[in-house]
C-alpha cells in the first residue's frame, strides 16, 4: 500500500514495523510510515490511537520494542531527543515544556547544547520569528504570554536547530481559529523551503486543507494511507473511528426566557491565586431551567479559575456573587452548594474528579457523601459499603461504563469510561444545576456522544447545565447559547441561532467581550 505513494527524490523518513508494548497493551503495532521531502504529512487518529507513542519513538523519548527507523535511507537508532535533534528532527509538543518564570530567550537557550550567549540567541530568535510571520519578543516572560505565543517559542526553538523534519503534536488544539490560520501560513512556507512536517491532529478539516498525505492510526495499527484532499471529512472520520458515530439529538426548546434562573453568577471577580493564574473580571452569567449554556475559550483564559469559584472549591467575598436556585451560595463550600442541588465535574479526571488509587464505589462516595448522607452513611459516620456498591453498579449500567473487574480502581479505567462514570455519578443525583469543565476532553467519539446526549437530556428534564469546553464543535452541538471567556472576562451569551464559528472565534481572540453587536457587524 505504501509503495504506490512514494514521492520523487527519495524519502526523508521511513518507518518499518515499529512496535511499542506497554505491559499487555500494544500502543503501536507494526507501524509503517514514510515521509517524503517537502511534504506535510498528517498522522490522524483518535485519542489513544498511538500517535503520541509513535512520535515519541521517532523523537527518541521512547525506545521501540521492534522495528526500524530509516533516515535518509540509513537505519538509525534514535536513543535520545538529543540524538534526534542531531539527525535533524525537531518536535513541538502538545504540552509545552517552558519555564514560566524565565524569558522566551532563556527558555530557548536551555534547550541548546552549546554556550551561545543569550543576546545572540535573542537576536537570532527575533529575526527568525519575524521572517516566518510569528512575531515574538524574546525578552518577554513566558508567564505573561498567551498560549499561542508560547507555542511560537516552541516552534522558534525548534527552527533554530534547522531541522529537516518538524513534528507538531496537535498544534491547533490550543489556538483560536485566527491564530491557527497564521500557523498554517508558516507551515506552508516551511514546506516551500523543502522542509518536511509530520502533523498530528484529529481535526479533519485542517488536515484536508493543509496536508499532502495522511496516515491513519486506529488502536495502534495503521488502517490506511490516503491523500486527504481526495477524501471527505466523513470518510476520514470513518477511517479514524471505525464505525459511524451516533449523532447527538438536540430538540429546540421554547419559552426558555420565562424559565427560572437556577444558577446566577453576579459580578464575580477574583484576584489571581498564583502569579501565573488568570484573574476573573466581573463575570455575569445566568443559566435557566432547561437550557445548556456553553462557555468557549482558548485554554488558560480563566476557565479553571471560574470553575473553582462557581463550584465552591474557592469561596467568594460576597454571598450574592453566586446564587443557586435563588439562594445566595457565595460563602458556601462545595458541599454546601451540592446540598442546594448543584453538581460539578472538573476538567482533570484523575486526581481532581476522582482519586486514582481508589475504587469506583469509593469515588462515588467522594462527591456524594454530603448529599446522600442518609443512604451512604450510618450512625457515627460509618460507611455503608453495600448501599454505595449498589448505587455504583446502577451508574455503571446506565452509563455503559466498561471496566475490568467488579469494582476497579479509577486509574484502571480508560479516560472515556472514567469520564462516563464521573458524569453518571452526578447525573444519578438528578441535580438542578450542573457545571461541567471539558466533558469530553480526551474521550473517544462513542463515549463523547453518550456524554453529550446525557447532558442535553438533563437540561430537557428541567435542569440548568453549564458546559465549559475548548471544543467548538461540541459546544455548537449541545448548547442553546454560547458565551466566550477571554482573559478572565466572559462575553454575553450568543443564542445558538446567531452564533457562528467566526463570531465565536473573534471573541476567543479577545474582540471586546461583553459587546456582541460590533462583532456581528465585523462578521
Amino acid at each position: 500500500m505504501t509503495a504506490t505513494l512514494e514521492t520523487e527524490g527519495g524519502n526523508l523518513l521511513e518507518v518499518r514495523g515499529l512496535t511499542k508494548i506497554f505491559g499487555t497493551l500494544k500502543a503501536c503495532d507494526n507501524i509503517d510510515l514514510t515521509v517524503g521531502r517537502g511534504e506535510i504529512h498528517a498522522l490522524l487518529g483518535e485519542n489513544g490511537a498511538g500517535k503520541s507513542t509513535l512520535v515519541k519513538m521517532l523523537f527518541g523519548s521512547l525506545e521501540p520494542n521492534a522495528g526500524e527507523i530509516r533516515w535518509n535511507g540509513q537505519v538509525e537508532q534514535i536513543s535520545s531527543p538529543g540524538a534526534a535533534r542531531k539527525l535533524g528532527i525537531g518536535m513541538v509538543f502538545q504540552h509545552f515544556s517552558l519555564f514560566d518564570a524565565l524569558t522566551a530567550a532563556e527558555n530557548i537557550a536551555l534547550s541548546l547544547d552549546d554556550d551561545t550567549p543569550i543576546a545572540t540567541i535573542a537576536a537570532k530568535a527575533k529575526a527568525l520569528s519575524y521572517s516566518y510571520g510569528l512575531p515574538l519578543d524574546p525578552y518577554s516572560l513566558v508567564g505573561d504570554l498567551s498560549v499561542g505565543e508560547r507555542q511560537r517559542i516552541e516552534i522558534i526553538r525548534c527552527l533554530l536547530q534547522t531541522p529537516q523534519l518538524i513534528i507538531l503534536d496537535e498544534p491547533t488544539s490550543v489556538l483560536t481559529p485566527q491564530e491557527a490560520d497564521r500557523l498554517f501560513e508558516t507551515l506552508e512556507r516551511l514546506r516551500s523551503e523543502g522542509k518536511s512536517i509530520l502533523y498530528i491532529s484529529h481535526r479533519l478539516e485542517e488536515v484536508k486543507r493543509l496536508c499532502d498525505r495522511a496516515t491513519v492510526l486506529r488502536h495502534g495499527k495503521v488502517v490506511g494511507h490516503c491523500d486527504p484532499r481526495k477524501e471527505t471529512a466523513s470518510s476520514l472520520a470513518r477511517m479514524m473511528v471505525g464505525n459511524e458515530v451516533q449523532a447527538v439529538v438536540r430538540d429546540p426548546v421554547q419559552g426558555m426566557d420565562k424559565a427560572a434562573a437556577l444558577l446566577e453568577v453576579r459580578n464575580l471577580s477574583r484576584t489571581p491565586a498564583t502569579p501565573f493564574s488568570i484573574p476573573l473580571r466581573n463575570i455575569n452569567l445566568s443559566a435557566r431551567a432547561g437550557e445548556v449554556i456553553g462557555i468557549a475559550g482558548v485554554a488558560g483564559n480563566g476557565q479553571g479559575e471560574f470553575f473553582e469559584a462557581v463550584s465552591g472549591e474557592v469561596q467568594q467575598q460576597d454571598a450574592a456573587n453566586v446564587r443557586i436556585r435563588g439562594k445566595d451560595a457565595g460563602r458556601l463550600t462545595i458541599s454546601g452548594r451540592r446540598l442546594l442541588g448543584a453538581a460539578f465535574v472538573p476538567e482533570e479526571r484523575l486526581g481532581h474528579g476522582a482519586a486514582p488509587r481508589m475504587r469506583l464505589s469509593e469515588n462515588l462516595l467522594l462527591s456524594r457523601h454530603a448529599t446522600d448522607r442518609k443512604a451512604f452513611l450510618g450512625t457515627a459516620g460509618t460507611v455503608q459499603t453495600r448501599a454505595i456498591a449498589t448505587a455504583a453498579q446502577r451508574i455503571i449500567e446506565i452509563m455503559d461504563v466498561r471496566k475490568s473487574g467488579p469494582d476497579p480502581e479509577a486509574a484502571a479505567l480508560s479516560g472515556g469510561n472514567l469520564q462516563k462514570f464521573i458524569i453518571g455519578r452526578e447525573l444519578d443525583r438528578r441535580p438542578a444545576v450542573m457545571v461541567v469543565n471539558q466533558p469530553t476532553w480526551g474521550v473517544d467519539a462513542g463515549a463523547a456522544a453518550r456524554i453529550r446526549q446525557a447532558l442535553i437530556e438533563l437540561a430537557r428534564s428541567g435542569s440548568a447545565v453549564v458546559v465549559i469546553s475548548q471544543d467548538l464543535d461540541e459546544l455548537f452541538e449541545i448548547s442553546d447559547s454560547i458565551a466566550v471567556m477571554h482573559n478572565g472576562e466572559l462575553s454575553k451569551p450568543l443564542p445558538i441561532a446567531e452564533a457562528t464559528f467566526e463570531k465565536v472565534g473573534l471573541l476567543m481572540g479577545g474582540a471586546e467581550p461583553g459587546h456582541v453587536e460590533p462583532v456581528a457587524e465585523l462578521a
Partner: protein
Amino acid sequence: MRIELVKRPQQSALFSALSPFIALGLTLIAGAIMFSLLGKNPAEALYYYFIDPLTGLWDENNRWQLHELAVKAAPLILIAVGLSVCFLSNNWNIGAEGQFTIGAIVGSILPVMYPDLQSWIVLPLMLLMGMIGGAAYASVPAYLKARFNTNEILTSLMLVYVAQLFLDWLVRGPWRNPGGMNFPETRNFHEYAILPEILPASGRAHWGFAFALIAAVAAWFMLSRTLRGFEVKVLGQSPRAGRFAGFSASKMVFFAFIVSGALAGLAGISEVSGAIGQLRPTISPGYGFAAIIVAFLGRLNPLGIVAAGLVLALSYLGGEAAQISIGVSDKVVRAFQGMILFFVLACDTLIHYRVRFVGTPAVKAAEVSQNV
C-alpha cells in the same frame, strides 16, 4: 548510562503482601553478614538476638521476657498507630519522640508538683494530661504547616530536640528530687500515680500494652469503616480530589497531628508511670523514631502495626540479650532497625517500580524483552 525507576503498570498483589516478610528475611541475611564481619558466629548471634527473647513462649521460667516484649512494644504500637493516620493523610510527623517526651512531662505534673494529692483520680488525670500535652505539642508543626506552609518534617523533627532539652533541664533543675542526692531525677511516683501491671504474678507488662491494642483496633475501624477514615485517605492520596469532595486539607493537618500527638503523649506518660516510675533525662531509647519503622513495616495498617511493633520490640530485647551473651555493642540495635527500614522501603519501591538502565541501544532492548 544512567539508572531510572520506571513505574510498573500494575503491582503484584502477592509481593505486596509478602514484602514485609521479604524485608525481614533480607535483614536477617544482612545481619548475619554483619555479625560475621564483627568476628561472631552469626548463627549464635542471631539465636540470642531473635530466638532467646522468645523462649518465654514455651518455658514458664522465662515468661518475664514476654512481659518485657510487651513493655517495649506498647509505646511503639501506640505511637505508630497515630503515625499511620498522619502518614496516610500525607502529613509527615517525624517528631513523635518530642510529643512522647512532652506527654510524659505534662502527665507527670501531678505526681511531681503535687505529691500530696493522693487519690484514684490522679492516674486518669495523668493519662489525660499526657495526651493533651502530646497533642498540644504536635499542633505546633500543624499550625505552622496550615498557616505558613512550612515543611512539617523539619519543624516536627526540630521540636524533638527542644522537648528533650526541656526535660533535661527540668530533671536537673526545678523538678529534681529534693531527697535524691542530686541525681538528675524527679521524685518517685506515689502508688496512685503508677500504671498497674496487667498480670503482676508473671511479669511487669503494664496497661500501656492494652491501650496500644485498643488504639490499634479503634484506628483500624476509623480508617477502614468511617467517612473520617475515607477523608484521611482521599486527602493523603490526591489533595485536589479531597478538596473537590469538600474536605478541608488544613483541618486534616490538625486532625492528623493531634491524633498522633495524643497517642505519642499517652505512650510517654504510660512509659513513665508504668515502666520507669519517675522522670529521668532519658526516658526513651528512641521509640518515637523506631515507631516510624513500625508504621511502615506494618504497611500503615493499624492491625499490621501491632505485629510490626512486636518485631521491633524484639530487636530492642535481642540487642540487650546479644550485648550480654556475646558482647556486641548496643549500636547493633540501631543498625538492625536501620536495615529493617531500608529493606522495607526498598521492597516497596521495587514492587511499585522497576529498574531500567537507560542508554542501551534500542535493538538490545528489543532482544531483552523477547528473552523475557
